[in-house]
């Protein structure tokens, strides 16, 4: 018969999580990871029980954005996410990879994703923010299949290369019955036109000081980037 038992645990592992928001945008490099991390911090700072899951196995970066120690998680009846500033719970494959690059094909991404989901104990959360790798590939398909309540938050830039990919992906998701939680326009010029995708959650300008705040949750929360993004946290609660 050959059953994968991990699949049978998924429902229970997420039953205490009210909203699961996958931060995507499908284009690479548009700011998904910085948006995921700062949004998760902002929700946690508002007193909402928040988790952050980095699902970009071959390009995990949230631990760098947040300055999280790449230590093994604590074992209980599974593994406990790391506890960061404002009680933010954080899980990443980076905890297991010793700071080294990990080459993975699609089936291996799916296996790693199932493993992480089956063993991580999130407990009660108001929000789980999930930082997705670019594309509509294995991680995106498997995660939205397994965790049916997943909503997507699209990060888009003013470039036609980002906007057109986001528009067609959103259309596909709509047809598919996947909820779009909203759109964050990143690297948006002050005076430029707004994205045609709705609902708009925030417009975030280029912040030259963001780079030097990476690695420190408190510094991140004080950036102009965070100030712009706070509209998204306000709209989600």
């Amino acid at each position, binding site marked *: *018969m*050959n*059953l*994968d*038992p*991990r*699949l*049978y*645990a998924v429902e*229970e592992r997420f039953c205490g999580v009210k909203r699961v928001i996958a931060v995507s945008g499908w284009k690479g490099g548009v700011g998904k990871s910085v948006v995921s991390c700062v949004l998760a911090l902002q929700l946690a700072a508002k007193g909402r029980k928040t988790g952050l899951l980095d699902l970009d*196995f071959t390009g995990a970066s949230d631990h760098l954005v947040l300055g999280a120690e790449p230590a*093994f*998680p604590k*074992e*209980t*009846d*599974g*593994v406990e996410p790391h506890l960061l500033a404002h009680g933010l719970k954080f899980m990443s*494959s980076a*905890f*297991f*990879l*010793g700071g*080294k*690059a*990990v*080459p*993975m*094909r699609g089936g*291996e991404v799916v*296996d*790693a994703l199932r*493993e*992480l989901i*089956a*063993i991580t*104990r999130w407990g009660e959360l108001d929000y789980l923010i999930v930082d997705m790798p670019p594309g509509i590939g294995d991680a995106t398909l498997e995660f939205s299949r397994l965790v049916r309540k997943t909503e997507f938050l699209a990060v888009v830039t003013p470039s036609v290369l980002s906007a057109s990919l986001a528009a067609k992906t959103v259309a596909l998701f709509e047809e598919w019955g996947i909820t779009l939680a909203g759109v964050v326009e990143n690297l948006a010029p002050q005076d430029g036109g707004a994205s045609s995708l709705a609902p708009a959650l925030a417009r975030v300008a280029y912040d030259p000081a963001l780079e030097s705040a990476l690695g420190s949750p408190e510094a991140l929360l004080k950036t102009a980037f965070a100030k712009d993004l706070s509209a998204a946290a306000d709209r989600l609660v």
Partner: protein
Amino acid sequence: MHEWALVDSVVKAAEAVARESSLKTVGEIVLVLGELQSIDRQAVDTIFAELKARAAEPVRNARLVVESEPTVFKCRACGKTFAEKDCAALDPVEKEAVHFLPEAARVYIKCPACKSPDFKLEKGRGIYVREIRGEQ
């Protein structure tokens, strides 16, 4: 023990199969442990005994048969089939990483013939259920 979460998923799988196939009792669950993940077999037995006591009725008297599966890798670059013992031994921290997430092996293990990290785990990665037997 993180084994707890894995054994819990096995019990949940047995409950689901019992429900779907209208089994009155599940007699036996055959669980395979891939050697790569170094799952503590004794822990599996202890946790299973604890969890089945509070499982759905059909699973309460199930017997767990645990089999071990040696790990087989196959290099996608040169085609060589190899085992963990053909590679440099992992240190305890690396082993622990692979125990949590078997894909971490992709960081620490390379094809012994051509050094490629692009290999397939043909057998013995982690846990799976080979068989759930019961009566209707």
